[in-house]
């Protein structure tokens, strides 16, 4: 056994998050760690990687007990963790980041050439074309992820812990990552892999461990365990009907929102769409196809060079998100930490921030605000199991519900939802899907941007697909299937294909 955890317990104050958890990692295996948000996965891996110390229990490396006081001690043993939130120095170059804190030196000076060479090798192994001299700030999120991984493999890594590595990667990058994981496994590296995506885990994991509410509920080989069974173990109850039935859409349902001929510099070349009352319009495409840019331009958050918006058939001008709010259009951003919630602000103020004027006459009425907050907790099932004071202290799923509560505070008729289930556990996903269903049942309309094919297919009445800034097509009925969406998303089929091929 390469790395083992024995009877690990961990508490934060009065709040115990891990109860006697055991975990065994063998050399050359991919071990998946599953659990809902708040199940204790992150706490457990932080203990293994030396970021946290257990309240009781022990960590063993090849049978000998280790007491890591800091992550660098674990790294010295070859136990390296890649963070969910990327931990890179944005203003430094890729190679400077890769060797940050363990720079190669020649005498007193940095050996830049050697560092660049080794960075280049590591990046080449990842089959990425990231330039070692590029500044990290200028890279896409997925490239930054690759840098994190490169950073890990330039160390003499024996145990690699990956916390949700594919959350921000494109499909192709995921393939490259999986190929790399396979190579690392052959080299005898043990990989502990945290993900919510059961399909991925089915694909790459040798063994699997499931946590629920800080307890170990299952551990064993992946072979013979089905996705459905694992989902049930994580949630602790049967998840039937992951996707609720589609709301019936009357043939004469009026168009509530129309976007015509949108052009966004550097992102969208050509896009028009309509949205009807009670409809879920999905937006498919790869990361960077321009879906977010298009909808943010429609909302007035991003500058456009052309394009017209019609609300209930009337042309409207949306220059600022406030204008969109006035027209009862709400936007749920995909980046809940960077754009959605004020992390160091209390929960109540976060919920009321978008619609603060409803609580002002003219001074803020704190009691009414509190009332609205308590209502939101009930309505959106926000669980305050830990004594969370600020939004930062909530788990990912609860943050998402808090954000949902904030967005819904304006009582919108149209809700634009961007990647609502990124990094979220099965149980909360299920709740969000049903919430979208309830919205449409109540005659609201939803635009759903998602990179998860299942979501798009399961929830949408129609799916608009984008490829390289062009809205290539809108699929309906039988056309909505994985293969068709992929063909439009890759530009094999649809509008603007010719220009792309020959232009």
């Amino acid at each position: 056994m390469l790395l083992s955890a024995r009877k690990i317990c961990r508490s934060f104050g009065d709040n115990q998050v891990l109860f006697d958890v055991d975990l065994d990692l063998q050399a050359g295996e991919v071990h998946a760690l599953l659990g809902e948000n708040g199940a204790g996965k992150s706490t457990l891996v932080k203990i293994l990687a030396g970021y946290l110390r257990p309240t009781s229990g022990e960590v063993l490396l090849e049978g000998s007990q280790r007491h890591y006081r800091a992550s660098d001690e674990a790294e010295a043993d070859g136990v390296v963790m890649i963070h969910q939130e990327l931990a890179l120095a944005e203003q430094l170059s890729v190679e400077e980041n890769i060797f940050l804190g363990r720079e190669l030196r020649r005498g007193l000076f940095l050996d830049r050439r050697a560092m660049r060479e080794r960075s280049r090798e590591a990046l080449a192994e990842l089959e990425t074309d990231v330039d070692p001299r590029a500044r990290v700030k200028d890279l896409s999120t997925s490239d930054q992820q690759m840098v994190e991984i490169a950073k890990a493999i330039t160390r003499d890594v024996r145990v690699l812990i990956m916390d949700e590595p594919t959350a921000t990667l494109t499909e192709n990058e995921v393939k490259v990552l999986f190929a790399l994981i396979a190579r690392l496994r052959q080299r005898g590296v043990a990989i502990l892999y945290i993900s919510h995506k059961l399909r991925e885990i089915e694909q790459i994991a040798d063994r699997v461990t499931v946590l629920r509410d800080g307890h170990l509920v299952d551990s064993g080989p992946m072979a013979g365990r089905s996705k459905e069974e694992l989902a049930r173990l994580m949630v602790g109850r049967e998840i039937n009907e992951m996707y609720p039935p589609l709301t019936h859409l009357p043939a004469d349902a009026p168009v509530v929102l129309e976007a015509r001929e949108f052009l966004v510099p550097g992102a969208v070349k050509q896009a028009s769409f309509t949205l009807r009352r009670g409809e879920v319009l999905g937006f498919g495409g790869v990361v960077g196809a321009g879906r977010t840019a298009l909808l943010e331009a429609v909302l007035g958050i991003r500058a456009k060079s052309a394009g017209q918006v019609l609300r209930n058939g009337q042309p409207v001008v949306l220059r600022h998100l406030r204008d969109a709010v006035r027209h009862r259009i709400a936007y749920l951003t995909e980046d809940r930490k960077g754009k959605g919630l004020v992390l160091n602000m209390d929960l109540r103020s976060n919920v009321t921030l978008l619609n603060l004027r409803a609580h002002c006459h003219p001074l803020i009425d704190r009691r009414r605000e509190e009332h609205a907050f308590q209502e939101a907790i009930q309505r959106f099932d926000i669980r305050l199991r830990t004594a969370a004071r600020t939004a930062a202290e909530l788990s990912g799923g609860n943050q998402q519900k808090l954000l949902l509560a904030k967005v819904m505070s304006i009582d919108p008729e149209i809700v634009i939802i961007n990647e609502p289930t990124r990094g979220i556990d099965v149980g909360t996903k299920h709740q969000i899907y049903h919430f979208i269903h309830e919205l449409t049942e109540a005659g609201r309309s939803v635009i759903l941007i998602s990179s998860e094919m299942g979501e798009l297919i399961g929830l949408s009445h129609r799916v608009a697909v984008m490829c390289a800034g062009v809205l290539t097509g809108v699929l309906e009925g039988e056309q909505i299937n994985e293969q068709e969406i992929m063909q439009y998303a890759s530009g094999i089929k649809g509008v603007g294909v010719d220009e792309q091929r020959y232009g």
Partner: protein
Amino acid sequence: MSSVMANNKTTNKAANPTARQKGFAIDLKTWGPFVALVVLALLGVLINPAFLGLDNLSNMLTRSAFIGIIAIGATFVITAGGLDLSVGAMAAFIAGVMIILMNSLVEQFGAGLTTVLFGIGASLLLGLCAGFINGIVTTKGKIEAFIVTLGTMGIYRSLVTYLADGGTLTLDWAVRDIYRPVYYGSFLGITIPVWVFFFVAVIGYILLNYTRFGRYCFAIGSNEKVAEYSAIHVDRIKTMTYMLQGVCVALATIIYVPRLGSASGATGVLWELEAIAAVIIGGTMLKGGHGRIWGTVVGAIMLTMIGNILNLTDAISNYLNGTVQGIIIIVAVYLQRASWRKTGA
């Protein structure tokens, strides 16, 4: 719509008592500046019982009013993630223009109330405009506040020196007689500057804690992107904080001018740093997102109190005022950070 999401009410109820308990540790942080003020006051009494004399207290509060009023404006700017280094120079410039204007109006209106009111009006207008310039250049020009206000600081400072032709601008004696009570007068036994300080603080408190503007300042200072995605007009709110700061500077100048009746290139030197120090001692975070008006008031009083105590004792030279202030600023912030960490916020 509530059926699906609200399927787990029990967990919520259990959570509330623990949430309350945690508030206590935070309270110590809230009251920190006040505790420090009391400790400093006790020290003052021990050193010299005259410290508690009404005259001394009144004098001290009156002196702290200038910095205090400016610092209340600075609390908004800093809470919203900005910084204004130009306030001291702005005060000097406004004072200079006020004096020139009032002197020139004497011929027309005589040395009467009208002349003084014109001066006061001009001061407020100038403050508002100066703040607007700082705000609009920072937000629309997307230049860091530090750089913009460093620039305007130099501009105002040199303008006042130019207006005074390198010397001193002096207010007409007759006007000064009329204007005098604004600094030296009192109402209900409390001097006018202290009243102004008090009202600015109360209004500031309400603005920061009970209006949308205040809440938006917190949101912008914490994360501008989030504020933008919360349909807040970020640039507008930020510009408004600078304008509010300008008005505060104007108010401070209005009560400052009758004190000496003059302005020169040396007026208001280092006021910006004292104002920022008062804000920081009061528990507002320099990086934004967290601000406290009463803390700022306490901070401004503490800074003046240090000078006052040093005046009352021979143990430490008065020339070391800056040293003691500096140490207290650093210690105050250190203590705040320490308690910050403990509560895990």
